[in-house]
Structure formats: C-alpha cells, structure tokens
C-alpha cells in the first residue's frame, strides 16, 4: 500500500428526496506517471490510482478511469442525485492493488 494515502470528501449530511448535490473528493497520492527519471536516468515506474468510483446505496453515480495525466492528489467534483436516505461509498483503486475507501451518510431532511 502506498504511504500516507488519505481521502478527503465533501458531501452534504442532509438532502431532500431527489435533490442533486455536489460532491468534492480529493485523495493524497503522488500519481507517479512513469515519465519521470531518477538521478541515474532510469525511468521511475508508473504507480497511480487508476480508477475512482462513487456509489449511493449500491447504485453507480460515477466511475472514472484514470490515466497518469491526472495530477498528484487527484481531485474530482461531480453531481449526484439523492433518491432516499443512505450512504455514499467512494473507492479508489491503486496500480499496486491497494483499495482506498471512504463513505458519507446522507439523511433526508
């Protein structure tokens, strides 16, 4: 598992039924592109988060295939519809097999 990888998500705690809410997600990750070279001129191998998904109560909101051109500390902002009370699940998949997760509960109100 890559070191110090931490998610940071902004999601509302409450929403009306059917409301569209804005979600902001950041995760601290170096996103080593595979283009950089070390001091001896050898290419530093690629090691990125290659996929990000957001689900609500098991239904897909967004599924992002990520390439090395996504900046360090990948950030996404998108809109989601909240049909009922429940939980957002955020998942990041690392090249090295690690999976990072975060979740945010939403109440109706």
């Amino acid at each position, binding site marked *: 598992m890559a070191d*110090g990888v*931490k998610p*940071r*998500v*902004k999601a509302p705690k409450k929403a009306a039924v059917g409301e569209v809410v804005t979600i*902001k997600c*950041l*995760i*601290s990750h170096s996103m080593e592109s595979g283009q950089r070279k070390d001091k001896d001129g050898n290419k530093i191998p690629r090691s990125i988060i290659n996929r990000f998904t957001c689900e609500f109560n098991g239904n897909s909101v967004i599924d992002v295939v990520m390439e090395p051109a996504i*900046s*360090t*500390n990948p*950030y996404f*902002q998108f809109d989601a519809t909240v049909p009922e009370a429940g939980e957002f699940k955020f998942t990041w998949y690392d090249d090295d097999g690690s999976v990072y997760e975060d979740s945010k509960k939403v109440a109706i109100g």
Partner: protein
Amino acid sequence: MKLKTITAIAAALFATTAIADEDAELVINGDLEIVTKTAAPAHLSDALDEIMSGWRFRSDGTQAMQMDDFDNPGMAAVDGAAEAWATVEGEKGKSCASCHGDVAESMVGVRAVYPKWNEKAGEVRTLAMQINDCRENQMGAKAYGYTSGDMAAMEALLSVQSRGMPVNVAIDGPVAATWEKGKELYYTRFGQLDLSCANCHEDNYGNMIRADHLSQGQINGFPAYRLKNTKLNTVHDRFKGCVRDTRAETFKPGGAEFIALELYVASRGNGLSVEGPSVRN
C-alpha cells in the same frame, strides 16, 4: 511592422487574457472573509501604498481553489497534522494535545504574531523553531526537518487556527536588531543576476518575469501548496529558491539570515489576513 506597433499589439493581446483578477475578494467556505488587500503598514508607507496577498496575482482557477477547504489540496496535509497533534511521540509520552489541548482553542492567534521574541530563550523564534523546541524539549521527540512535509503540515494546521486574523508581528523592542538585519537583506542585491527581493517584489509586482506573474512576495499565505510541486512549501524553502534563482549561493533554511528575513517580510504583510494554507503557482 514597426517595433512599437508589435509591442502595442502584444500588450493588448496580453491584457485581454485573464492572468489574474486583481479585484477579486477571497471568502473561504462562504463565510470566512480574508483581507487580501489593505493599506501598507507604517514602516512601509514610504515604499508602498497598498499591500496585497499573493492570492490576488494568481489566475481565476487558482484563486478558486482556495475558496473551499475541499477544493484546497493543502488541506489534506492539515488533516494529517491534526492526527499528529493528538499522537503521542517521544520519550516523555506526550502529544501536542497533552499540553495544548484542542488545537482550535489553544492555537488561535499564534501564527499571526510569528516570528516573535522568546524571552526565556533570548532569541527571535519562527513558528518552525518553536514547534521543534516543543518537540525536542517538552516531548523528547525528534525535531521535524525545518522544511519537511511534516513541518509544513503542522505549520498549516496552526495557520488555519489564525485564518482571517490580521498578521501582526512586532518590529520593535528586542526584535528590532533582527528586523533591521532582515530589512537590509531584503534590499541587498544577490547573485549573478544582481537582484534584491525589492527589485521584483516592490518595484515590479504585477509585471511578468518571463512566464511568472510577480506578486509582492508576501508570506501571509504560507505554507503554500504550490501547483508546480503539488505539495505544501514553507517560507524558508521559498526564500532558498528565490535567492538561488538570482544565481547566488543561497542561504540555509533555519539559519540566521532567513530568520531575520522572515521576520521582516512577515512585517511587510502586517494587516493582511493569515491565509494559509494557500494555493500558489
């Protein structure tokens, strides 16, 4: 085509491009107003009328990144430092919280007055020096590297507790000698390029130096998340880079020169709000 015509057209083209919105106001999270432009402090009034935060010199997109703590990539490090604050470290079995309790209470206003005089130690202390003094002497823990990621994160955590408060460093009394030294450094030309801080940041803020849009070189926003290296940067790190860019042998972070310079440069921003962690180029 005459040179004048070409330059005029080039100037016009450049003017229409949104390099920066120097009239924008910064409000964080919809409710925290940040002073990014104000009258210059008395000690500076013969050189500048107004002082401006580096935020004003950045592009619209970069400015926007600071308006919401969930858009600001520097805040991820603040989360990490908040955890470190509560983590026991060192021989004495303490965490920062053991003595200081809740950071949001005990550290309010602290960042705004640093660097400052420490009576007991008989020296001017920067925030980094004080953090390490606590770590080594109160916690029996290892000092953070002066410009390390851990130090930058902790400085950012402390900055957040003073965010929106006016920078207010003392320049008289026991710090006066250090302040004078810092001021002298600020106006001294260094390096093969023979440039002083003032040449760019006092005489030419708002202009372009090649592809960079020059700011006033204020440090109210430090530590700064720089887009170019995607991490938080401390003041001395930036000073080191600036002096190196004049093609001089640069000074050591944590050394006497940069401590004096930090005190002086901080005082040039007296009146601007503590803004860190900021987002810069």
